[in-house]
């Protein structure tokens, strides 16, 4: 049975799209048929992050409205046979994302994929609610910073009350914390909330910690999900997060001081 995963955060700019691209690519690299969908209607960006912006012909809204078939809109990734990108529309009509239409498209995707990764827009408006509504799992993308943590808490509340699973009294959405832009140096100086602090405040299980890394900007510059950069600490941290999502036990990297020199050496080389 296909699993619907939403990448959500409430706050903008925390790394939802970067993480959606990296996690979708990571799942595909492990042999899972994966599609990543952009729910940010009007502010399409997943195509750029995935490096397929010049191949977009039809989009999510075209398929919802019946103007295009699913296989006309899906873009096959050139790096992985298992990975597909489903771009959104640049229309300014936010209500174009109709819930029953979205459900119909997701049901059709479920027949063809193992994982459906939904990249949510920021905020708690229609688009963000639609992106999380059908989720089986949610990856709460959070920066170690007060406004991001507060908004994550809000989104966790919304998942628990407004998702389809909540409304239909089904098993609750499986919620995971993904802490991004983490700097061990600053945590040690007492300048940044630590992973333990954020875990304690949000009290949801930790999926991964992505260190602040130059490789993330480099990946977005070139339209390559960061997991394809095997040298990059962020890329390896995303691989670990994907492995944990699939049920493997993996130690958290980049969190202990004895690993710091190793991490620094990598950063220095990157």
């Amino acid at each position: 049975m296909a699993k619907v995963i939403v990448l959500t955060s409430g706050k903008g700019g925390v790394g939802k799209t970067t993480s959606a691209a990296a996690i979708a690519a990571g799942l595909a690299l492990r042999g899972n048929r994966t599609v990543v969908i952009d729910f940010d209607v009007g502010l399409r960006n997943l195509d750029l992050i995935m490096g397929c912006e010049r191949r977009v012909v039809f989009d999510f809204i075209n398929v919802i409205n019946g103007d295009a078939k699913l296989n006309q809109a899906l873009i096959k990734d050139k790096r992985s046979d298992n990975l597909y990108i489903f771009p959104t529309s640049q229309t300014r009509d936010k209500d174009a994302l109709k819930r029953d239409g979205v459900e119909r498209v997701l049901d059709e995707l479920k027949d063809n994929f193992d994982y459906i990764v939904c990249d949510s827009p920021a905020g708690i408006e229609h688009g963000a609610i639609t992106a999380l509504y059908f989720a089986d799992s949610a990856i709460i993308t959070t920066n170690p910073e007060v406004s991001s943590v507060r908004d994550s808490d809000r989104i966790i509340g919304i998942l628990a009350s407004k998702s389809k699973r909540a409304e239909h009294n089904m098993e609750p959405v499986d919620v995971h914390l993904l802490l991004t832009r983490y700097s061990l140096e600053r945590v040690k100086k007492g300048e940044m909330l630590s992973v333990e602090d954020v875990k304690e405040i949000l009290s949801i299980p930790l999926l991964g910690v992505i260190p602040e890394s130059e490789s993330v900007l480099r990946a977005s510059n070139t339209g390559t999900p960061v997991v394809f950069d095997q040298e990059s600490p962020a890329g390896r941290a995303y691989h670990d997060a994907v492995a944990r999502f699939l049920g493997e036990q993996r130690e958290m990297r980049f969190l202990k001081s004895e690993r710091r020199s190793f991490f620094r050496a990598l950063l220095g080389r990157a």
Partner: protein
Amino acid sequence: MMRLLDLLFPERRTSAVVAKDRLKIVLAHERASRDAPDFLPVLQKELLQVVGRYVEIRDDMLRVNVGKSGDTSLLEINVEIDRAKVSPAKNGAASAGTKAPPAMRLDTGTPAPWVKPG
């Protein structure tokens, strides 16, 4: 060893510690109001009116909360009163058993308009 160090050098109030404390406080408030039923503010307002007939009371002296104790949901109403402020006329009128105040809408057995069905 770490414990001893902690005792000797108590935690510096770094900006991260301040951030954590502020978040804990604000989220405790927001979670409480998020889980609260929609009728609480109206209930609080009506209770204030009723109590206000007998004692002088300010808005912040009456607090209504919904909490949990084990499997039981609790509606908790805390009223702080100042004895000196009891109005003798009103007090006398109430003890003389004059016309009872109108029943609260929640007591009528039919759901009030703000109570969600189901």
